[in-house]
């Protein structure tokens, strides 16, 4: 199994249809775990990292969830393949940057476990749309299964022991990837971000820590991992996401009502531009695709086209464009190729109409 197979396979995030995906693109659960008696990856010597990797990969490979899945060792992959995995959120930039990391990915790409990132194990489960409980249950089962075959570092007082004090305890980071064009257009995003920060939630851009919010897509996650039960963490995040989704819909409806023709014009222009551009930068594509996604949510474009917009957001990223072209491309070459892919995908899109939502 290779990165090529991952690109070719249909998966939830790029191919699933469903009304639940308006506003919330995906739900993610991450658990940080470590082996007892082994130094953390950042402090381990090369042979120790090898031993950690071998033990973890062996245990993961034996789990039914990863049957016929992918075992990818970063040291064996080329730059472009690693960049594709980062763009798909299957591995972090940090894991991709090192040689001793590995990723074990389930066949359906919903579960991926990073080995030798900051911690020995980073269990990740991602579901398309808003499914906090379902996503958590899969992660919980994986955690139990792994705890059965590996002795995990755990203390009665501090919970799961991690390399960084910001993850100790539950090791749980729960997050939602949300698309908030309404709040951004209305100029309310700073206010919402501040309110979330003040109540212990982090707001980040599309590719996580330190990235900007291309395409009005934000990742909202809990920060505190110690002193709260998993149940309490999920409930706190869930309550806020519900609130943010409501505010986003209010902002969208208000914009559509107050702007009238101008609102539809903005969405229609983006479709026109995407359909005729010959050169398209990554951030330009993301911002225009954000308008198309908004149009699908609002009934200005058919809702069943939304997954195609989501797929273009993922496949319009630089490494994806090059992987699809099968060659390294310079910046102009990527912009040309991206524009061609988008034009082709949107050629039979219907015209933008008045909102119904």
């Amino acid at each position: 199994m290779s990165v090529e197979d991952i690109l070719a396979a249909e998966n939830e995030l790029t191919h699933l249809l469903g009304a639940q995906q308006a506003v919330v693109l995906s739900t993610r659960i991450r658990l940080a775990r470590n082996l007892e008696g082994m130094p953390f990856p950042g402090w381990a010597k090369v042979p120790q990292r090898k031993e950690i990797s071998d033990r973890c990969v062996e245990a993961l490979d034996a789990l039914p969830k990863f049957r016929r899945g992918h075992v990818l060792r970063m040291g064996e992959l080329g730059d472009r393949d690693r960049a594709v995995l980062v763009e798909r959120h299957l591995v972090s930039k940090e894991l991709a940057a090192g040689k001793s990391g590995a990723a074990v990915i389930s066949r359906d790409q919903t579960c991926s476990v990073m080995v030798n990132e900051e911690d020995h194990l980073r269990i990740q489960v991602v579901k398309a749309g808003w499914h906090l409980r379902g996503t958590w249950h899969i992660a919980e089962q994986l955690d139990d299964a792994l705890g059965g075959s590996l002795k995990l570092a755990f203390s009665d007082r501090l919970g799961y022991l991690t390399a960084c004090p910001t993850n100790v305890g539950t090791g749980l980071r729960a997050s939602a990837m949300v698309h908030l064009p309404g709040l951004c257009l209305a100029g309310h995003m700073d206010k919402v971000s501040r309110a979330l920060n003040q109540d212990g939630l982090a707001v980040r851009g599309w590719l996580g820590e330190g990235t900007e919010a291309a395409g009005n897509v934000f990742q909202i996650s809990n920060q505190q991992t110690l002193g709260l039960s998993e149940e309490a963490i999920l409930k706190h995040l869930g309550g806020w996401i519900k609130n943010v989704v409501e505010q986003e819909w209010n902002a969208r409806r208000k914009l559509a009502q107050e702007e009238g023709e101008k609102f539809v014009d903005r969405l229609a222009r983006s479709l026109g531009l995407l359909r005729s551009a010959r050169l398209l930068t990554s951030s330009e594509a993301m911002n225009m695709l954000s308008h198309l996604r908004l149009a699908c949510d609002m009934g200005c474009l058919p809702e069943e086209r939304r997954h195609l917009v989501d797929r273009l957001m993922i496949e319009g990223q630089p490494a994806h464009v090059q992987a699809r072209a099968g060659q390294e491309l310079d910046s102009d070459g990527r912009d040309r190729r991206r524009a061609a892919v988008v034009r082709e995908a949107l050629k039979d899109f219907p015209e933008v109409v008045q909102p119904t939502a």
Partner: protein
Amino acid sequence: MSQPIKCSLCEEAATVHLSQVVHGNVTKVHLCEACAQKGGATDPAVFQLADALTAASPAPTLTCPECGFTDIDFRKRGRLGCPSCWETFADALGGLLSKVQHEASHVGRAPAGTLPAGQLRRRLDAARREMEKAIAGEDYESAARLRDEVAELEKQLTPS
């Protein structure tokens, strides 16, 4: 002309100057714009970090017997060396934890079959509190789930 003040965290010229007064003791930290933004100039942890970095203690005072990691390494990296480091540096980490995590003890899940009694009791207390909150907030769906959790924990705590 006098030398510009250097950033306490890197070698750039400092443009942000902070003074903190605790019980009459004044601590000053000078930061360049980049470090100030990165650390969040209003975060009290910046003072702690700057203290740690500028304190003239070239020799480590604590070393983890398991992995050889020292307190100096922690100051440099902000990450620990191995699970045993949590015990070795427990005192130093306690203060940091209450800052970054607000709470200093775990109430979440544990590896299957290893939950000690103290941990079970804390979880039970937490689940009961959350259940009461859920009932008060008329969130009966969560309350029912928590009631099952409480019952399960009580069962585990009763010696069979």
